[in-house]
Each structure stands twice: as C-alpha cells, then as structure tokens.
C-alpha cells in the first residue's frame, strides 16, 4: 500500500506538485527582473540599429558591403525577442508594424519602396521623410529588399536605417527614460492608470509569451508551409537574406531569457526547467530542418520536420498553460475588464 502511494506520488503531474510546494509569487520582484531583461533586449536592439545606421552611411559613401550585412543580421536577431511584446511603448509608438511589417500579404513593403525610390535622392536618404511614410517602408523587411533585391540601395538605405535607429532609441526611451513605461510598471497599484496591481504586468508578459508561440507557429512556420499540395516559400520571413531560421531561434532565446531570468524563482523549478527544455528542444529541431525554410517547405521530408516543430510549439503552449500560468497565478479568465 505504501509503495503504491509512493508510486502514485511519483507520477503526479507537475502542476499538482507545483500547487503543493509552489514558492510565494512576488509579482513586484518579477516585474523588476523582467524589466532588467527588457532593458537588455531593447538596449541590444537600440545598439544594433545604431550600428546598422552607421555602417549604412559608410557603405553608401563607398565603403564595404559586408559590415552592413553583419549589422543587418544582428539588428533583426535583436528584434526577434521583442516582436511579441505588443504593448507599452511598442504599441504606443506603433512599432509592431514599423519595425517588422510581417506578414505582408499585399506587398505593402514593395509598394512603399517603389514610391520612395521615385523621390529625389536627398529625400530618399532623409530619415525624417521615411518616418513620415508608410509603416511598411520603415522596417527590417524594407531594408532587406534594399540589400537583396535589384534596387538602388543607396541613399535609401541611409534614410531607412537612420529612421530605424531612431525608432529603436525611442522604444528604449519609452521604456526606461524618465517617466517611461518601466516607471508605470514599478508603480503598479490602485491609483496607477494602467496596472492596478503587479500581477497585471506578470499576466501581460505571460500573454506575450503565448503570442510569441502563436506567431512562430502560425506566421513564421504555418504560412510558408501551406499545404502538401501547395507550399508558399516566399511567405517565409526574411527569405531574401536567409535569416528565417535564425530569427526563430533568437525569438525562442528571448523566451528562455524571460522565463529563466524574469520569472526565475517565482516558478517552481522542475516546471521552469521542463518548459525551458521544451523550448531548447524546439530550437534544436529548427536547427535540424536541414535548409532555410524557403527551400525546406518544398521538400517532403523537411516538411515533416517543420510539422514536427509546429506540434512541438503546440505542446509548449500546453505546458505553459499547465505549468507556468498556474504557477504564477495568472491563468487566463474572461472579464469585461479585458476591454473592447
């Protein structure tokens, strides 16, 4: 009988164990730690964008192309973890579309570039002109086309990268300058205009991780995969530069950072370690596709691998819902306070 009890205890789902010995969740401490992660992530995007703008100026002055490409890769990979944080300064500044107009079902980027390239050269290279133009002109996909399509790269590259560097600076300032969003987060409470309690920020972050998984599964993988009869390789993000697979890995790295360093000890460790392992397994599988997504979606064997990653992401979502959400005390429920 006693043996049976021990066996039963051993096969208890992780979330039940979590409920029994869950650490006390201090949402104020979670907020501080997540903000530290954000400071680093938004800081990296700001720095890489600034470097990209600098290399663009040099390149358009007759310098080498390679440094621009390296800086471009680094900038997009720095953006990848931020792509799912569609609240706070990103929302206030409409940066979700300006930085990465994806998916772009109606070729708004191509159209915006065509219009821009008809402008006088001085305007093409003017970041302020770019800032006043279509969102689709302002971001990474537009820069990618300037670098990898048969288009006149300069001086538009200077204008678009200069504007992107400004956006990246504004985003970091929006979070961390005086009276920035981080101050709102830290001042959570009944009088706060956004966060009535610290728990609300934790819930926002948790929801953003869910959106991150959805974006990977549906947009980054599902759209190019299409059906067995018809794949859509050019729906893959960043297919021109070949960054597609690396972006997904960088995005998953960002999730690991939030979970390990942001949620940290607030989530019972076996659950946290398990979810992080699932994310790392997903990264390994992305690495093992065997080709950029652009090619992989048209190869029957690689398609199976992609479908396997999509299943893994669905599994990750379930694990988050079962282990991380309840552990943090932020399971989603419905309320008219959700807004509409």
């Amino acid at each position: 009988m006693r043996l049976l009890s021990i066996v039963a205890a051993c096969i208890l789902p992780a979330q039940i164990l979590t409920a029994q010995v869950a650490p006390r969740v201090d949402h104020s401490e979670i907020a501080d730690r997540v903000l530290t992660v954000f400071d680093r992530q938004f800081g990296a995007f700001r720095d890489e964008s600034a470097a990209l703008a600098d290399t663009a100026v040099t390149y358009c002055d007759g310098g080498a192309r390679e440094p621009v490409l390296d800086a471009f890769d680094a900038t997009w990979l720095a953006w990848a973890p931020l792509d799912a944080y569609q609240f706070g300064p990103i929302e206030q500044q409409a940066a979700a579309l300006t930085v990465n107009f994806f998916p772009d079902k109606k070729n708004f980027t191509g159209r915006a570039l065509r219009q821009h390239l008809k402008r006088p050269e001085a305007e093409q290279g003017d970041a302020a002109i770019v800032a006043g133009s279509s969102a689709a002109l302002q971001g990474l996909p537009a820069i990618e086309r300037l670098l990898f399509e048969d288009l006149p790269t300069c001086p538009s590259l200077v204008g678009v990268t200069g504007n992107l560097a400004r956006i990246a600076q504004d985003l970091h300032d929006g979070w961390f300058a005086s009276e920035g969003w981080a101050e709102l987060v830290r001042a959570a409470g009944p009088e706060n205009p956004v966060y009535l309690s610290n728990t609300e920020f934790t819930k926002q972050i948790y929801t953003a991780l869910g959106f991150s998984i959805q974006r990977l599964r549906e947009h980054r993988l599902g759209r190019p995969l299409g059906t067995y009869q018809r794949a859509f390789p050019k729906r893959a993000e960043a297919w021109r530069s070949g960054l597609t697979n690396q972006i997904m890995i960088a995005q998953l790295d960002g999730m690991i950072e939030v979970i390990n360093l942001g949620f940290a000890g607030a989530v019972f460790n076996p659950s946290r370690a398990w979810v992080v392992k699932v994310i790392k397994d997903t990264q390994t599988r992305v690495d093992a596709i065997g080709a950029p997504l652009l090619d992989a979606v048209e190869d029957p064997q690689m398609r199976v691998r992609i479908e396997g990653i999509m299943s893994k992401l669905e599994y990750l979502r379930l694990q988050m819902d079962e282990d991380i959400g309840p552990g943090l005390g932020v399971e989603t429920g419905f309320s008219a306070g959700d807004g509409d």
Partner: protein
Amino acid sequence: MDRRNFFRSVVAGLGTAALPLPGWADAGAPDFVTAGNKPDNSTWLVGLTATGDVRFQIPIPGRGHAAALHPTGPQAVAFARRPGRFAVIIDCAEGTEVARLNSLDGRHFYGHGAFSSDGSLLFTTENDFDAPAGVLGIWDTTDGYKRIGEVPSGGIGPHEILALPTGGFVVANGGIQTHPDMGRAKLNLPQMRTNLTYLDAAGKITAQAELAGELHQNSIRHIALDQDGDVVAALQWQGLPTKNVPLVLRHTRGEDLKLLTHPDERQLKHYAGSIATCAETGEIAVTGPKGSHVLFFNKDGTPNGSSQHGTAAGVAQSRTGGLMITRDGGLVLRMNGTETLIPVGGDWAWDNHLVPISV
C-alpha cells in the same frame, strides 16, 4: 415542461421590443440580453429579468460582446467579441438558431450591429483588415440573412452602430487599426483618427464629426441616444496614460462634439465601457469595467456623482424605470439616484453590454 419547451417559451420574449407576442407574459420573458462567461470559460448569451432571474442561457461559440434586436420580428443577433468571426441569429419565438453569420474572408466583426428601421436589413460593423478600412456589412434578413453588400463606415475601427429614430444610422469609428494576425494589439495609435459618422438608410454617409487635435487618441467606441435624439458616447483614451482626459461626449447634429468632464473620470482608468441615458430623468450613466466605477451625469451634462461597482460593464434603460447596470455578482438598478443591488446566481462574468428587450 421539458428543457426545450421551457427554453422556447422563455426565449419567446426576446424580440418583443416592438411586437409583443402572444405568450410573452406566460413565458416570463427576460428584460435584457447580455453575453456572459462562466468560470470554466464557457461562453453564453443570457436573458435576464430586472429582478435578476436568468430566463435563458444559450451557448455561443466564443466570447460575445453585444446583441441587436430586430425591430418588428422576434429575432436577436448575438455578436462575437472582436476580432469575431461569427454572429448568431436566434429566433426568439422558437428558441432556435435561425442562421449563423460568418464574416467574409478578409473581414471580421467588431461585436455590434443594427437593423434598419423596417427590419429588412442588418448592418454589421466590420474590419477590412488588410486594407485597412472600416466597413458596414449589409445582410438581407428576408433572404436568410444573405450578405448583399457593404459600404464604408467612414473610418478605421467601426465599433457600435445605432439605428436612428429618424431613419439611418450613426456609427462610432474608434480609429484604432487592428489585425487578427497581431492579436488585439493596436497598430496605429500615433496616427489614429476617431469620429462619429451618420449614414442614411441606404448606408450613404451624410455627416461626420471628428475628435481632432490633442484628443485624437480618445477612441469613440460606444454610443447611445438621449431624450433629445442627440448622441452620447463613451470614449477610451489611447494616448499617454499619465494624462487625464474626459471620457464622455455629446453630439448634436450639425454642431461640434462636446466633451463632458467629470471629477471622477480618472477612476475609469481611461476606459469608458457602456453608456445609456435614463428615459425618465435623462441621466447619463457610463460604466468603467477596468476601473470598476460608474460615472453619472445630469441631463444637462453636469456631473452627478459616481459609484464603485466591480467590473461594471453593461448599462441599459430598464423597462420598469431607471438604469440597470451589470457588475460582479449581478445587477444594480439606479433609480432617482438610489442604487439597489440585485444578485444573480451562477458566478457569471458579464461581457460587455446589456441590451434592453423592451423599453
């Protein structure tokens, strides 16, 4: 009486706003319809009486937002919450689903709709999200709710639409660009423009009033008509959160939008939910489900106090007088400045609007 017959009889009251049906009283018909969610996250359309009885609960395929009642026939339309893909037409006499409207490819519903004055057409607020543009879908109620066309709504993000007693419609274009690929993220806050748009019975725009200038980010979302036929609106501030702004306005056709300030507007956390005016006194009530507060204004637009009510969501004229408000745990009846809590069993979370059956 078995469950089905019970359901049929109680639902029979749903569409009786202008056409009392035989058996209405026998059926113990509800006074209000609202969407509601249970703790297990199941989603329902609920009929409530002014005394807090749940007369019916119909499962719907996702979170509901608001409902529209047919002006002559016993039919109600329950709309999914943004970015909703469905609306369910319920035959109130039979208690059955008559039709289900599915949004077209490239469109989703915003959660509101209105019938033309003769009931032959249903207008639905929709997002043409890849354009992006706001449209009004037009459905022929006499032909199985066939989609027969669409017209521009006059702005991005059309939300609530009301039929005007003089014919035609008024639409609140909230101004916020969203895309289902991006969840519920707001994509254009720095450039957003919000307005009230008036249309004739055929859906042609006849007038617009825009909230421009430094309040261009004060999204006009929910609207009601006052005793004089003017439009009152509940706003949602999308600008700098540390800024304090009015969240209510009134509009008389041909004049400028007039903002109504309130000393407790800050309690709404920048989010005014539903709005209604009292048939007897002209009092205006504006709910704040985020701030769990309700603001009141006198008929002339001056402030008339506020109350704290957990997740105060819907508000509507009550057939028996006064204003009824949905909140955690049930309803509140506000009459002549006195509030009475009316508990409703079932641990419901109301979502978002209260629609009166018969006023």
